[in-house]
């Protein structure tokens, strides 16, 4: 009768599939999230909400959720924290799990790797260690396969975020790449037996046409959108690289200047020594040559992660579609 489970111990996650819980319906959480997006999300707009649940042994069980209300800039005095507290208190009154264990967010064609997500997930994970972010892709879901993914920041990334040091050197030292930014946590959806029975029955009753939604061939729109987004990111990436390039060029130029300066100094001092004069006072070289401001690399990292994400999406999508196309071809041949 319940859903999601996973475990986390010091960054090591393993799924315990055998665990059973006698908590309320897991489908409820999923449906709630879907409903939330259906009602409030439009196009590329994003909806967010709070996940409630508790840690049981090595799993995190999510048993309920509630949305953040959409609010415009008009009611600036709206206090989100206040709202959350109120909501959780009310939930406790009706004896529902009220422990905060993360948040969820919808995504538009798989674009969610952003600075905002990183920041808020960091603060969640910082405050409540077991927090996860649940990414719900409404578009994929609409095409017939539920797409729900849970992510956490890796401990390395947590360290970096704590330091707030996004310089190229720091990132190099942490040896973190876009692959190691997020870790995906497996999800298991569990329902009560009654619901499972109902599902069986529903499946039995549903018409063939409903079932074969999956075989839809019109795919170019989705692909186009993905490519469009991918292109935008690539542009951003290019810009970042150019920025970095200028930076490193400046740095090397300055390095050279510094070097020349030191050499000249040394020569001069040597000459002075031969003439018997006092050596020139050592000046602070760092003051003379202020190193150029290094561009923050975190954004680049995020963009790379996002690009990776898109690529995965496209890959997945195309492989599925190719299969479908071949299938369709075979069918055509068979018919004729």
């Amino acid at each position, binding site marked *: 009768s319940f859903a999601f489970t996973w475990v986390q111990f010091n960054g090591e996650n393993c799924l315990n599939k055998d665990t059973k819980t006698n908590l309320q319906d897991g489908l409820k959480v999923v449906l709630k999230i879907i409903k939330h997006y259906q009602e409030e999300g439009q196009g590329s707009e994003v909806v967010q909400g709070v996940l409630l649940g508790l840690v049981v042994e090595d799993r995190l069980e999510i048993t309920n959720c509630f949305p953040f209300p959409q609010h415009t800039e008009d009611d600036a005095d709206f206090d989100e924290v206040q709202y959350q507290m109120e909501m959780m208190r009310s939930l406790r009154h009706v004896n529902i799990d009220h422990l905060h264990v993360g948040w969820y967010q919808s995504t538009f064609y798989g674009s969610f790797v952003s600075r905002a997500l990183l920041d808020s997930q960091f603060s969640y994970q910082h405050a409540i260690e077991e927090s996860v972010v649940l990414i719900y892709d409404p578009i994929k879901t609409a095409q017939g396969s539920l797409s729900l993914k849970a992510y956490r920041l890796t401990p390395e990334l947590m360290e970096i975020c704590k330091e707030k040091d996004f310089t190229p050197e720091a990132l190099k030292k942490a040896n973190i790449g876009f692959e190691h930014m997020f870790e995906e946590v497996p999800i298991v959806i569990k329902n009560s037996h009654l619901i499972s029975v109902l599902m069986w029955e529903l499946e039995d009753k549903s018409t063939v046409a409903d079932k074969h939604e999956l075989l839809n061939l019109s795919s*170019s729109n989705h*692909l*186009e959108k993905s*490519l*469009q987004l*991918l*292109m935008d990111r*690539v*542009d951003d*990436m*290019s810009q970042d*690289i*150019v920025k*970095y*390039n200028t930076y*490193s*060029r400046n*740095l*090397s130029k300055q*390095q050279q200047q510094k070097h020349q300066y030191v050499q000249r100094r040394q020569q001069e001092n040597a000459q002075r020594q031969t003439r018997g004069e006092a050596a020139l006072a050592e000046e602070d070289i760092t003051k003379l040559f202020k190193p150029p401001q290094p561009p923050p690399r975190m954004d680049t990292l995020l963009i790379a992660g996002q690009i990776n994400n898109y690529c995965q999406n496209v890959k997945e999508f195309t492989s599925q579609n190719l299969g479908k196309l071949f299938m369709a071809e075979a069918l055509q041949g068979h018919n004729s």
Partner: protein
Amino acid sequence: MSRFFATGSDSESEESSSADEITPKTSGPNFRQSLLLSDDEEDTKRVVRSAKDKRFEELTNLIKTIRNAMKIRDMAKCLEEFDQLCRAFLKSKTIVDKEGVPPFYIRLLADLEDYLNQLWEDKEGKKKMNKNNAKSLSSLRQKIRKYNRDYETEIAAYKENPQESADEEEEKEAEESGSSSGSSDDEEEGGEGMTAKNFLKKEAVPEANKFLKGAKGSGDEASSSDDEDDEDWGEDSEDSGSSSSEDGEGKSSSLACRFLKKTQEGEKGLDKKREQRKKKQKKERLEEEAEEEAGEEGEGGWEKVKGGVPLVKPKMFAKGTEINTTVVVKKLNEILQARGKKGTDRAAQIELLHLLAGISGEHNLGQGILVKIKFNIIASLYDYNPNLAAFMKADMWKKCLECIDELLDILFENSNIFIGENIAEDSENLAIIESQPFRVRGCILTLVERMDEEFTKIMQNTDPHSQEYVDNLKDEGHVCGIIDRLLSYLETKGSTEEVCRIYLRRIMHTYYKFDYKAHRRSLGLVAETKSEQDQEESEGEDSAVIMDRLCKFIYAKDRTDRIRTCAILCHIYHHALHSRWYQARDLMLMSHLQDNIQHADPPVQILYNRTMVQLGICAFRQGMIKDAHNALLDIQSSGRAKELLGQGLLMRNMQERNAEQEKIEKRRQVPFHMHINLELLECVYLVSAMLLEIPYMAAHEFDARRRMISKQFHHQLRVGERQPLLGPPESMREHVVAASKAMKMGDWRTCHSFIINEKMNSKVWDLFPETQCVREMLVRKIQEESLRTYLFTYSSVYDSISMGTLSEMFELELAMVHSIISKMIINEELMASLDQPTQTVVMHRTEPTSLQNMALQLAEKLGGLVENNERVFDLKQGVYGGYFNRDQKGSYQQKQGGYQRENRGGYQQRQGGYRGGDGQRGGGYQGGYRGGYQGGNRDGNQGGNRDGNQGGYQGGYRGGYQGGNRDGNRDGNQGGNRDGNQGGYQGGYKGGYQGGYQGGYQRGGGGGGGYGGYRNHQNRDQSNY
């Protein structure tokens, strides 16, 4: 002063009234006139006095004033007078050397010093003093200390024996009482006659510096003072010859008031004494008053000493003087000497010149002198406004026109008058001498040019929406008349240079006027009424013929570049205005003006801009949409059309333009009646942009590197899109935007109804002379371009389409549809072929789908990304040269084995070359590496992807890309990017746009570039025809 007015005493009211009457800046002349008044006394006996007496008297007078000032504690006055005294003393040095320092002088010095010291001690009194006085006191004290050092012994002697000169003092006192009684006499006589008082007063006050004493009662001194003046102002000899009885009534009365005031000052002095005894408080106030007035008097005195400007007499010549040419010329020069000097009454000067002209006319001195005087009258009329920005008053302007007319009359009547700038003053021949022509210095052309400028100025400064403007504009006929007359005069007499100048003036008054009569004639219409017919006949030649004749003369004869440039521009403008597009265009192209117009001065640039705009509008009327767009692009894209055309200033903050600049810019404005309608201009531009841009947009919908043809147009579209609620269009722009939207869908009927309707007719289209033609042309263009747009947009939907259907849809003839589609196929805009027997267009369907387009774009972008990344890597290698051990790397590669070598041989070779060069990191290596890399990658990757159609394009692209991007220069990139078809045009577009933004009026290279591209295009078009 206002403080004193407020008290409201008699004297003050008089003062104010006198201030009203006296024209400002005339204090000098008044003084002179006062001297003239005294000429009556000329007859009384003259007494010769010794130089010593004269000098000493001067000194004693000054001393007297100082003592008076001391009594009333007026330090400012004291200081001033003391300065004068010192100067006067210096002047009389020779006498003093002979006679010794006069005792009264020493006495004053001693007294003054004592007095000052005493005042200095008196701290309270000092506090009470006003600022000015206190300042004077301290400076005077210092001065006198310094000064007295030279006379220490004498002063000491005097201090020992002050009685020595007591008797002298007594004498003085007696004199003083005499003077006071004299002045009181004056008061009594005051009611009887102004002139009498004037006379007395004149002597009493203007000469006050010299002797305030009662001595003035005697005629001797009066005459002596005159003598003095004669010495001081030698030129006055003539003045004294003339009698003052002729003095103008008004002037004498104003003089009277002026002097009356001074009398009252004296009076006040007496009053003061009386009151002093009565009320202390009042005394103080009066003291201040007296101080103030004394100050004024002091000013007057100062002016006198300095000497005024050479002055003008109301009466020209003494009675009985024989009036002949030399005398008149002398007089004239005398009047002219005052010209331009401060304090000269310019109005009076003009009057005098008129008077002189009258006199010379009366005495039949001949036309030569008259011409000379007329020249000067006109010049002084121009001088009347000292400020260059101010414009002439209406009456002055009328006078000026009349004068020039008269001058021209004279010149036409007398062919024996030679005028010119080059005739030297002394070689003038003004007198009537038989058989010799008159020679007069002066340039009538300059005068007329100036007049023309004044006219422009008047028009600039008149509210264009007032009746006044219309009235002023009526004078244009007069101005043109004068110019015409001068033109015919100079054609016979002037040099070619002058003829060129006057021709240009004539052109300037012609080029912007639409010749309706010629237009009607060309349409074959006969004037309806008889009067109109008459008028037409009397009109003479068409303005086109005139323009042609005048301009061609200038082209042939002019040696100054500017006149020719202006003439060419005006000629083009005139051609364009009358829809002679090819002449106008050819002239523009032949003149090569667009190449070097940025070196011209702003007015010429404004003219150039006007011409370009007119040319563009003309092209539009002729249906040359591309040409119209290109010609208008420079002006429109800057968003400052108003400013560039000299039709108004844009609001800008003061930082960018200070007051001075603003004045200059204001002077450059074109008068309202010559304006080009800005809304019409914008509409023409937007409609041409729409006709070009919409099909282009449809054709390049998926092209990532699509360029905008017109930024302005896109901006309007965006503005339209941003509207939250789309109502029916109101303004011209909204109409165009709405029409564009309709055209995008290929809906030409809606587009047509948006472009041509009542509103747009009244706003724009009706402003053209050939409204109907323009509208027909527009409909046709809309149909054609809509058809093209339709084909671009929907060709992917069709397998084939019948031309008959298309012709029906767009209401075009079949042949036309055929030709449009053929053109599109030839230009490879439409991937289709024509099927002749069925009259259908068969689509090839080779256009890449949007997804394919997208993929291509992505591939390109990734290429860029990879390249950028490579560069990061390069840099790293450069910086950390020793980071990778080369041998190590090599061995690593060797370890990779044959797999790599086989598969990526080319790449590895490159890598090898790269490593080889790595040590030196020379430029050659870099280029080679990159070139190789790109070549390999791109060719393999993309060459196959694209069909042959785009292959050539790619080549161009890559070239430009490599060249440009390496330099980090985007523009280069874009330049190479374009295919040949658009190269010229786009280049021009870019240049023009940038130029327009950068230079003020100087659209600089941009303008040139813009038209350069335009020209290229022109050639291509022609070859297409």
